[in-house]
């Protein structure tokens, strides 16, 4: 999306959501699992922030903590702030949070079948948002719901509003989820792997739709994904996470063209690409470590090709290496 990107890079960046030093842990039978350890993340007005990482790296937990939908217990938010509209979301009361969730900050999930209620029609579920946040009457809310379905380009919206989730295809369900999330025109949309369960041609449709709606509504998006292709197609900035930490942050051009962290490097080289046919895939050796059994020093040190002595001693600091580009690594220069 070239036009989109140009617009945003031309704007002055004003932060809309600032997450500082967020730590979240889960108290389980096998011990305390530090799922997120000191994450800093800034979302600017009108941008798409891609959050990339493998399963268990804490990307979903970070997003869910901001909306306070982490089950506590076993989860607990140990430290940090999440500033949104001059308020710390982590300190609001439950009643105040209800005014934020689905109204100012919305979330869509990976599997639209499990996040929609199977016992209510799609129209009722969208109407619920209007009744709850806007205090509309039942009939009026349902009429608005049909409008919202039309907006997400569902054919024959009046009929579809009376359908139950199981009567819709995967792509349609995700459109319905988007309709629910965007009903109140939120300022921030958190999309947690929105296209992972979908086929490529449907993924292309959904990404296209999200791009369009973002410009229409003027919202900011946090896009959580493991698919680097999806990030390259719609994100403006990227945060790379590993083992509960942010390891690199930068604009998409920083990350794809001059990334600094060895994990980012490994990730990019391990993806099979259509534009570079038959090139050998470079794997990252080893496996993702358990979060309660991380190596000493840098969490990536046991899998890193460029590991040095100090990496095994001390955890690297998250330091700037260019304007808006930061990396958590002891390496001075890129060795590749």
């Amino acid at each position, binding site marked *: 999306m070239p036009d989109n990107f140009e617009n945003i890079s031309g704007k002055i960046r004003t932060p809309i959501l600032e997450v500082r030093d967020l730590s979240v842990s889960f108290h389980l039978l096998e011990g305390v699992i530090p799922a997120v350890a000191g994450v800093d993340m800034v979302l600017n007005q009108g941008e798409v922030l891609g959050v990339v990482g493998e399963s268990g790296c804490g990307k979903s937990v970070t997003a869910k903590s901001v909306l306070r939908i982490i089950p506590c217990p076993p989860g607990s938010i140990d430290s940090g702030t999440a500033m949104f509209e001059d308020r710390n979301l982590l300190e609001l009361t439950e009643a105040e949070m209800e005014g934020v969730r689905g109204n100012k900050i919305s979330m869509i999930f990976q599997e639209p079948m499990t996040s929609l209620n199977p016992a209510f029609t799609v129209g009722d579920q969208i109407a619920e948002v209007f009744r709850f946040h806007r205090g509309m009457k039942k009939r009026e809310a349902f009429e608005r719901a049909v409008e919202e379905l039309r907006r997400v380009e569902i*054919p024959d919206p009046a009929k579809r509003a009376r359908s139950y989730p199981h009567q819709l295809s995967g792509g349609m369900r995700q459109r319905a989820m988007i309709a629910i999330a965007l009903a109140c025109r939120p300022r921030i949309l958190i999309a947690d792997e929105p296209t992972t369960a979908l086929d490529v041609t449907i993924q292309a449709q959904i990404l296209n739709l999200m791009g369009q709606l973002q410009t229409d509504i003027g919202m900011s998006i946090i896009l959580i994904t493991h698919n680097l292709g999806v990030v390259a197609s719609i994100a403006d900035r990227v945060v790379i996470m590993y083992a509960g930490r942010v390891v690199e942050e930068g604009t998409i051009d920083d990350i794809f*063209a001059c990334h600094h962290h060895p994990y980012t490097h490994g*990730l990019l080289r391990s993806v099979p690409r259509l*534009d570079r046919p038959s090139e050998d895939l470079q*794997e990252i050796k080893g496996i*993702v470590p358990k979060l309660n059994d991380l190596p000493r020093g840098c969490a990536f040190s046991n899998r890193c090709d460029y590991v040095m002595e100090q990496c095994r001693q001390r955890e690297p600091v998250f330091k700037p290496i260019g304007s808006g580009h930061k990396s958590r690594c002891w390496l001075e220069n890129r060795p590749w």
Partner: protein
Amino acid sequence: MVSLSEKKQGYSGEPYLSVTGLKKYFPVGRRSLTGKGAVVKAVDGISFQLKKGQILGLVGESGCGKTTTGRTILRLIEPTDGNIVFDGMDVTHTRDMKALRKKMQFVFQDPYSSLNPRMSIFRILKEPLDNFMGHMSRSDKKDLVVQTLQTVGLTADHMGRFPHEFSGGQRQRVALARSLVCSPELMVCDEPVSALDVSIQAQVINLLKRLKQEYNLSMVFIAHDLAVVEHLCDPIAVMYLGGIVEISPKEELYSSPLHPYTQALLSAVPIPDPVLERQRKVQLLTGDVPSPLNAPSGCTFHPRCPLAGEECRLQRPQLVEIRPGHSAACFKAASP
């Protein structure tokens, strides 16, 4: 001791696996008194050939019948109609399927549900040996299990452990070892890497490449990710709604796809490079994949096809060879 690498080398021109007019219809709902009920045409008359040492990629979106095809080849489900010939033997009508099963193995998508949680890795790998190679002594079996584990990148220490102690990538290695242990000649892999993280996915793809070289294995590799298939398979068959729409050598399929569906599918894959992404033109398909229960008349792709004409609505196009080795089922591609 039987060595795994003592395998017949060299290619022959004869097709090694030949599938002709394969059909699998599943009955749905209640049958009427006349015995005719509604059917889902999951696989509707597909034909392809595989030479020894080749990996055939079977790609398509969910519900296109690729998994059913894979399972029918091994008669894990009985075909409704059609003929499967493997290494000169008629698979469809043989009464001695056990002898064939030793040579034909299956690898499932989800390594979490395909390994018995109550069996140790040793027992999981020994079971096929007990089943197919009863004459081997216990110590020979143990040697072979250790050797196979090493081939897939695990060690003898892993034998006493249980599946839950392994990560997804390691489990998939165990599943591969289980298929390899009785030296098969044909492997059908059903999306073996789609449940894995990117860095682990690259490890398993590289492993499969190596195994194919070492054992001169023939494979049917089922996937929905075109980039993964590109790295592993040649030739490649694209399926849509129960039929093969295009089959071609790898290079040609990616450089000059003939069928409009293949073209749309290829254009929909996002490239992990923002510079190329800004130039990429997505050919957006409208609508969803129709239900196989109610497949469109004529060419099954015509409701979504940008080129569809009158004949596409009325007649079903046959797979015809348009360039050497490159066939497509499309009227428009056949007569440009």
